[in-house]
């Protein structure tokens, strides 16, 4: 499986750490709503199909990214940085042209 890090380009899945369900909402830090906290900490969407996930490029730039990935086919349809204000620079394609592969 390859994940295209918005900062580094397409990299093998072994460079990434899965950080789970990206739909979870953390309650406000001072929230006393224990049900909301429990939902956030323990309950997960677990769809068979497209899943909105957080991954960290832990073996690379270490930023977290939001990935839409199909849990039936492992196909990735969208990747974006979790910090919207950061604008990654364009990624150069891997590999040199003309050289023996």
């Amino acid at each position, binding site marked *: 499986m390859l994940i295209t890090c918005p900062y580094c380009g397409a990299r093998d899945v072994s460079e990434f750490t899965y950080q789970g369900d990206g739909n979870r909402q953390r309650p406000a830090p001072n929230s006393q709503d224990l049900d909301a906290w429990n939902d956030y900490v323990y309950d997960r969407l677990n769809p068979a199909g497209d899943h909105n996930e957080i991954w960290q490029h832990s073996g690379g730039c270490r930023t977290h990214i939001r990935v839409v990935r199909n849990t039936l086919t492992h196909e990735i349809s969208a990747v974006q940085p979790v910090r919207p204000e950061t604008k990654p620079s364009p990624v150069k394609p891997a590999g040199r042209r003309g050289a*023996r592969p």
Partner: protein
Amino acid sequence: MTSRRTETGGRIDRFRTIRFTFDGASYTGHPGDTLASALLASGVSLFGRSFKYHRPRGVLTAGVDEPNALVTVLRGDVREPNVPATMVEIHDGLVAESQNRFPSLSWDIGALNQLAGKLISAGFYYKTFMGPVIGPLQGTRFWMFCEHFIRRAAGLGRAGKAPDTARYENMNAFCDVLVVGSGPAGLMAARTAAEAGKRVILAELDPVLGGSANWSGETIGEVPAADWAAEAIRDLQEFDSVRLLPRTTVWGYYDGNSLVALERVGDHKERFATDEPRHRQWTIRAGSVVLATGALERPLVFPGNDRPGVMLASAAKRYANEFGVLPGDKVAVFTNNDTAYGAALALKNAGARTVLIVDVRADVSADMRAIANELEAELLTGHAVVATEGGKALSGVTVQPFQAATGTASGEARNIHADGLLVSGGWSPAIHLASQAGARPEWDDGLQAFLPPQPTRKWTGAGAFNGAFSTAESIAQGVAAGMAVSGGGGQRFEPPAVVTVAGDPKPAPVLEIRADGKSFVDFQHDVTADDVRLAHREGFVSVEHLKRYTTLGMATDQGKTSNVPGLAIMAAALGKSIPEVGTTRFRPPFAGVSLGSLAAERFGDLRPERLTPMHDWHVEHGATMYSAGLWHRPQIYGDPGETIEQAYVRETRATRGSAGIVDVSTLGKIAVQGPDAAEFLDRVYTNMFSTLPVGKARYGLMLREDGIAFDDGTTWRLGERDFLMTTTTANAGKVMQHLEYFLDVIWPDLKVAVTSVTDQWAGAAIGGPNARKILQSVVTGTPVDDTALPFMGIVHGEIDGVPVMICRLSFSGEMAFEVYCGADWGTHVWEALMQAGKPYGLVPYGLEALGTMRIEKGHVTGAEIDGRTTARDLHLGWMLSKKKPFIGSAMMDREGLIASDRLQLVGIVALDNRPLSGGAHIVEELHEGNPHGSIGYLTACCYSPSLGKYIALALLEGGKARHGKRAFVSDPLRKRFGPVEIVSHHFFDPEGTRMHG
């Protein structure tokens, strides 16, 4: 034994002779030979014994699909079992052995199993060996008694015990187009893509590229097919953008168009070259893939179809054309399709006689009749072979008229002498990789085969893989595939003329001839047609149940020859069509892959080693190193003759008596910087950090979101916006990831950067009553007295010209200082400190003394912060700020986390003055014979020189309430029982007067 080598022909190099041994006997062959072809040429017919019945077996195929002729290859003491002889290239000094026989291949006692054939049919094991209900063999004992003997018969080849000294490597490759298979289709696809400027990898599992062109005997573009292929290969070699990989099996198709291939770099050589691995694993990220993997011929299922001398027709043709070996002098052919006729022609051209062609079809085409005439062979249409004769070699076949309606044979039987039988049951495209890529194959009634489906990923197919069995079609499809993966375009292409033997690859829908006797479907596992029918009778009718109940297709050949025949028999039993029964989904690998090649560089080097900057010093000064995660850390600096306990007691006494020094470079260190750094730390730690003045450090505790204790350590405020966080050694990576997650995902508005600086700093903790004096004598640029450097203060100075940062904090309970400097100067500073400490008898101490002093002080580490304990369990409730929310604060008061029966930290003193061990349990009443009633366990133990007792930290139910009570240590695993007293975890200097000074 008679030589079966032809006078001329084949791509073997007849001018050179190679000597090798098989089962201890010497043989010769030529470069280009496989072990199978060389042994066949020498007249060997018996290659191995089957798994269950130990039946004598010869060679069925000429390739990777071989189920019978498995051997063990030896290189010195290193054994490689279960290698198909068809895949072993011979070299001088090759040593091979047959397998699964005792005492010898010819006389194998295991063959007695055949007598019990009906008894040990499919499902045999499930129906017996349950044993008696009572008595000494009840329960599982009877089965285990029987299993002992069953296991003696288990397995095929024997693995060695000598460590494999070969090297294996992994190579990553990126290409626009990966072409799998180098037959005419693959060659054309590769050339077309290369001409379109694509970066191409062409992988071929055989030693020589060209695939069927090397043995088809056809003419392509007015030259022999093999010459045409050689020319095409030369053309490809001209491209810098093309990599050709012979001896390379593409075996796995993973996500993201990542394919994996095993290149056998050294196996065909007498010695592995020093600069080359034995196997090279290629991980190929391909823009697109052309699957030109060809097709595999299937045998027919009939009684005696496993006799040595029975061979796939295509394999016989290949032995004749490619290796100059005849599978027999007088052969018969048994087929359900036209392609076997061409094989017989090839054998005739090479010098063998075909005496008989048995075709299950009631009628055959005029072309086939013409071939039979040309062969001067008797043609029996509407007939079937119903038996074979011979022992370790074929001597004849019995034929009978065949009734297509019932699949049985009846009428007059004839015996005909033949020393070889060529069989063909039609062809199955090698769709394994496409299936791995997730696509469901589609059944083609005409070809009686599963064809590749619509691609679900970036691949396209060409040639026999697609069911296009003629070379002309394959060439055209190869070009088309090459153009497709190159985005159209390319040059106009004039297909070369192909001269071939006429024939229609469509077989009659007959794969089994039902007659008395064992008819094998899966040769290696001895699964017979009756076994398949028994599975049907017992309801194991889905493909997977069939496979699992009978073990059909589970052998080393993975059912390459048996899959479709097995399905056909089940379909007939069910009265359904084959696709209604289903097909097995193929999984990686396509063919066996050495474990070494998968481990590659990590074979013999599983994980990196982490060494502190002072590592060499420790080793030179007698440290016993201790493996802690990836780190190596000094355990003790033992004097000659000292036990571990004597050493750490000495080190502890010296430290508490004067001064000791310990390497703390392994502690996790994270720079937390930015305008919101203080705010961030307030949220991360349970206690307050925004109030910490610059130049001071504070002990901090972190919880997980769920309110469980996570990690602890000191964090130093180096500037208004600049903190240095330390973590435990074990959790350094996890804490870093935790911080990054919150900064990226939860609080992206916080302006904070975190940087791991663990490897940038060397750290030494120096402690003891004389520690300050030692520092005073060696630190320049700053005073280190109590005013300049109070408890938890930080100063910057120099030691022997090296800038250092010193923080006064204590893990040992002594007045102690952590001295940090740039990692490259770690040893320099360490030695300067040792030198300065000489007058005070400064000793280096290791993990044991470190642990002893922390136990005496009741400080917690990973043994207590184990992911299940809370701050309150560890008496760290005082660190939970009520003034602010922090990670875990919302969840930490849930009922389960404040329950009264939770395990709490206490101290334990052994009352019998004997050593304690970590992991021992504590009980209120001792029952040595029947241990029960555990109320907790010891997390860490030592002999305390300060107390003169064996002590421990423990987590006990309702811990604090038990202070002063007696209990017992109960350690049945190590047979250690005895009385203990439960005390506070603060054993030593509870007021902290020593460290405050």
